[in-house]
C-alpha cells in the first residue's frame, strides 16, 4: 500500500479508531497493530510477510543470546547477528549486482562470465527494517537497552507508518513509547495534519510536476537539451528528490502522531546547509545518525589519527551510498560525499592552523559599512560561527556539490551521468524552451522555503492548533482537494522504494 492511495485511506480509517479503542489494553493493541502492519506489507506481496517474520524471529533470538552471554562469546554472537542481517539484505538487494559485476570482471579477463543470474524480487522496505533490526541487536550488545518482549519487538520492526520508507526509528526511541500507556488525551492532531498535508503536497504535486516537466527527459536524453536546460533539470531533481522523500517521511511521521507515536524528524531544510557535514545533519537524518553510531564508530571513528579517520569517513559514506541501491552510481555518489567531507575537514584544520578561530574564515561584511556584519555566535563546541558572507558562499557551494552528487544518484549509469555533466558545459547559448516561467518559479519557491525560520513554522502550528477542530477539518479537506486537482492522475512511483 502506498500512502497517497484510496486503499491506504480506507485501511487507515479502520486502523485509527480500532487502535484508539484498544488503547487501554496494550497486548490487544499490539496484536492488532502487528496484524494491520502485516496486511499493509503483504498488500505488495504476501511473501514479504514471511520475510519480515523470519527477520523478527531471527533478531529476537540473537538479541536474547547477546544479552545472556559475555566476553568473546558475546562478540561472536554479535558478529553472527550483523552477518545474518547483512546476508539477508545482500541476497535480496545485491545478488544480481555482484553477479553482474563478477561477470563483467571475468569477461574482461577473457574467462567468459556465465555465473547464473537470479531474478529476485526486491522486497520494499527491506533496507529500512534491516537497519532497524541491526540497531536493536547492537543496542542490546552495547547495553543501551534490554531485549524487548517478542511481541514488542515484532511491532517495532513492522509498524506500518515507517515500514517501507523510514524514518529509521531506533529501538531505543520506539520501545519506551510502546511500554508507556498510550495517552488518548494528548494527540498532536494539528502537527499531524500539517505534516500529512505538507508531505502530500511535496510528494504528489511538487515532485511529480518537476519529474514530468523536465527531470525525466533531461536524464533520459541530455543531448537534446541546452546547458541551461540541463542545469535547471539538475536543480529540479535536487528539489524533486527532497520533495519526494521528505514528503513521504513527513506523511509517515504524521500518521504515527495520529496513532500516538512520536518519530524523530528526518529532514531539516537540507538545502540551507553551509557545509556537506551540515547537509548530512539535515538530510535523511535518521540514516546519517545510524551510519555514524553503528558504522563509523564501529570502524573506529575519529580514533587513530587523521588517516584512519578519513578512511573511516570514506568507507562509511561509500557503504551509505551502496545502501541506496545495487549500482556503481550509488557507490560513486557515496564516495563523492566522503571526499567532500574529508576535504572540508582538512580545509578547516588548515584554517585553524593559520590562527583563524572561525570555520570558513573571517567575515568582512562587504562594502555596506558593516551593516550586514553578523555578530559571531558561539556554538556549543566553542567554535565561533562563520559570518554572513561566508555562510552564503558556503550554502551556494554546498548546494552545488550536492547537485553534482545527485547527477550520479539519478543517472542510470556512470556513462549517463558523464553525458549529463558534459552537456552542462557544451551547449550554452542554445535555445531553452524547456525552461518555463512556472518551472523556474517552482524551483525558486521550493529553495526559498528551505529558509523558512523554524520558529515561525512552530508558531504557525501552535496558532493553527488553537483554531476550532471543525475549521481544521475543513481546511485539511480543502487542502487535499487542491493536491488532488494539481497532482497527476494515478500515483507516481516513489523514488525511495527502490532502496
Amino acid at each position, binding site marked *: 500500500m502506498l500512502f497517497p492511495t*484510496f486503499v491506504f485511506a480506507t485501511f487507515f480509517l479502520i486502523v485509527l479508531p480500532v487502535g*484508539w479503542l484498544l488503547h487501554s489494553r496494550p497486548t490487544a493493541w499490539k496484536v492488532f497493530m502487528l496484524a494491520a502492519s502485516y496486511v499493509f506489507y503483504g498488500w505488495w506481496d504476501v511473501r514479504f510477510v514471511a520475510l519480515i517474520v523470519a527477520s523478527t524471529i531471527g533478531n529476537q533470538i540473537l538479541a536474547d543470546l547477546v544479552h545472556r552471554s559475555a566476553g568473546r562469546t558475546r562478540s561472536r554472537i554479535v558478529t553472527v547477528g550483523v552477518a545474518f542481517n547483512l546476508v539477508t539484505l545482500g541476497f535480496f538487494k545485491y545478488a544480481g549486482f555482484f553477479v553482474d559485476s563478477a561477470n563483467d570482471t571475468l569477461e574482461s579477463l577473457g574467462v567468459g*562470465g556465465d555465473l547464473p543470474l537470479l531474478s529476485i524480487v526486491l522486497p520494499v522496505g527491506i533496507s529500512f527494517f534491516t537497519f532497524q533490526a541491526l540497531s536493536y541487536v547492537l543496542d542490546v550488545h552495547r547495553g543501551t537497552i534490554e531485549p524487548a518482549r517478542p511481541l514488542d519487538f515484532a511491532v517495532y520492526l513492522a509498524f506500518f507508518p515507517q515500514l517501507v520508507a523510514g524514518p529509521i526509528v531506533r529501538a531505543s526511541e520506539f520501545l519506551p513509547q510502546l511500554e508507556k500507556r498510550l495517552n488518548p488525551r494528548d*494527540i498532536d492532531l494539528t502537527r499531524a495534519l500539517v505534516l500529512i498535508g505538507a508531505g502530500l503536497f511535496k510528494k504528489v504535486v511538487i515532485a511529480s510536476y518537476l519529474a514530468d516537466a523536465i527531470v525525466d527527459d533531461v536524464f*533520459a536524453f541530455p543531448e537534446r537539451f541546452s546547458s541551461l536546460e540541463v542545469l535547471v533539470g539538475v536543480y529540479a531533481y535536487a528539489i524533486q528528490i527532497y520533495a519526494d522523500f521528505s514528503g513521504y517521511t513527513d506523511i509517515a511521521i504524521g500518521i504515527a502522531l495520529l496513532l500516538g507515536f512520536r518519530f524523530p524528524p528526518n529532514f531539516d531544510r537540507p538545502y540551507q546547509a553551509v557545509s556537506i557535514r551540515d547537509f548530512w545533519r539535515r538530510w535523511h537524518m535518521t540514516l546519517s545518525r545510524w551510519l555514524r553510531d553503528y558504522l563509523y564508530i564501529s570502524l573506529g571513528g575519529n580514533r587513530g589519527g587523521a588517516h584512519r579517520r578519513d578512511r573511516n569517513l570514506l568507507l562509511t559514506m561509500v557503504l551509505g551510498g551502496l545502501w541506496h541501491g545495487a549500482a556503481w552510481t550509488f557507490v560513486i555518489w557515496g564516495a563523492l560525499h566522503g571526499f567532500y567531507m574529508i576535504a572540508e575537514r582538512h580545509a578547516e584544520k588548515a584554517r585553524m592552523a593559520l590562527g583563524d578561530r572561525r570555520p570558513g574564515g573571517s567575515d568582512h561584511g562587504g562594502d555596506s559599512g558593516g551593516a550586514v556584519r553578523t555578530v559571531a555566535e558561539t556554538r*556549543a563546541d566553542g567554535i565561533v560561527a562563520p559570518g554572513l558572507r561566508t555562510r552564503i558562499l558556503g550554502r551556494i557551494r554546498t548546494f552545488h556539490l550536492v547537485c553534482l552528487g545527485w547527477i550520479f544518484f539519478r543517472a542510470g549509469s556512470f556513462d549517463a551521468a558523464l553525458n549529463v555533466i558534459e552537456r552542462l558545459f557544451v551547449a550554452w547559448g542554445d535555445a531553452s524552451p524547456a525552461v518555463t516561467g512556472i518551472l523556474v518559479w517552482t524551483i525558486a519557491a521550493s529553495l526559498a522555503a528551505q529558509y523558512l*525560520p523554524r*520558529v515561525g513554522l512552530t508558531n504557525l502550528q501552535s496558532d493553527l492548533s488553537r483554531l476550532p*477542530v471543525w475549521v*481544521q477539518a475543513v481546511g485539511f479537506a480543502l487542502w487535499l482537494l487542491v493536491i488532488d486537482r494539481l497532482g497527476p492522475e494515478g500515483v507516481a512511483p516513489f523514488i525511495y522504494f527502490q532502496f
Partner: protein
Amino acid sequence: MRTDRRQPAVTRPSPGGDEDWESLGRRPRARTNAATTIAVTFAAMALTALLSSGSLVGLAQRQEIGWQRDIALEAAEGLDRVASAFGFDRPARWIDQLAGRDEPETFDLDLIAGGGRPDGDTPAPTPTPDADPTPDGTTSPTPTVGPTPDETTSPTPTPTATPTPQPTPDASDQLPVITADRPLVLYVGGDSMTREVGNGVARATPIDLVTPILDPQVSSGLSRPDFLDWPQRLAGVIVNDEPDAFVIMFGANDWQDFEADGEIYQRGTPGWLAIYRERVATTMDLLDQPATAVFWIGQPAMRSAGLSDGMMALNEIYRSEAATRPWITFIDIAPAFAGPDGNYSDDIDGQRVRQDDGIHFTTTGADRVGRIVWDVVATTFAVAGG
C-alpha cells in the same frame, strides 16, 4: 537576508524527536483527544470525498472489470450526483480554472480520419453515400489511400496479402524530405511501455533531423476507453501537433476484460478479440493523414507465459490490420527480444534488456527498440544526406 539568531549554524538533531521544535514556539500546541482526532479524520475524509467526487469516479473506473468495480463505480457515481446537487463540485472547478486546467476538447473522429481538420486547413472528405455503417453506427469516410470500408470494419478479415498501395496523385500526400531545416516531427505514444521506448527513440534518432513528441500514458491502452480514450487523444495530437510520423505501441495493459455496449467480454474470447480488432482498426484509420506515416510497434514476449500468449494474439491483430493499410508499418520487435529458445529472456547478448517486472524495457532494451524504429523510419522517409 537576516538569519535566525537563535539557531546555530549547525544543529544537532536531538535523538528521540523534536523537543527543540517545541521549545522555540511562543506557546505549546493545543492537544486533542482520541475521539476528536477520529472525528476530525473521518469528517475531513468525507468532505474530501464530496469535494473530489469526480476523481473518485475516475478512480473507480480504473479498477479491473468485475463486481468490485461495479460497486465502487455505483457508490462513486452516487456520491458524485449528491455532490453536484449541493454544489460541492464547485471548488474543484474553481481550482481547475485557476490552474488553467480546461476540459479537453472533443473531436469528431470521422472528420479527422483521412485527413480532415476541423480548423479548415483542408476540406473535410465527403463520406461516400454507400459507406457501410460501422457497428457503432457511424459511417467511415473513404480513406485517401487504402482498402474499401468494408475491409476496414469487418471484425474478422480473412488473411490476405498486403495490397500494393496505389500511389496517389495528390501531391500533398508525398512524405516530406527530412532535413536539418525541416526536421521530422515524430510522435511516440501508448502505454507505460512507451516511456522507455520513447526515450530510446529520442536517443536513437539524430538530434538535428528528428523532433520527438513523447506521450506515454501509464495504465492506458485500447481496452479501457473508459479510463483513457486514445482515439480522442490522438485526434487532439493530429489537430494540435501535426506530427509527420506516429510511433504507436499498445497492448501491455490491454490483456484484460472489458465492457462494451453494456456487456462484459472476457479477455481472449472471440467476441473480445473482434471488438479489440475493431478498436485497432478505428485507431489506425484515424491516423491516416496526408503526408504522414505510422509505425505500429508490436509487443515482445513477457516473462509471464499467460501474458506472453496474450501479447502474441494481439500482435496478430496489429499485424493483419496493418497489412491492409499502406500508411501503417508494423514493426515486429519480438525477434529482437527473444532468448536462445525463442521465448522471453531477461538478457540479450549478455545485457539486461527487461526490468524486474518482466514487462518493461531497461534503458539498454529501450535503446534497442529505438534503433529498430529509427532504421524503419529512416527507410520510409527520405533523409537528406542519409
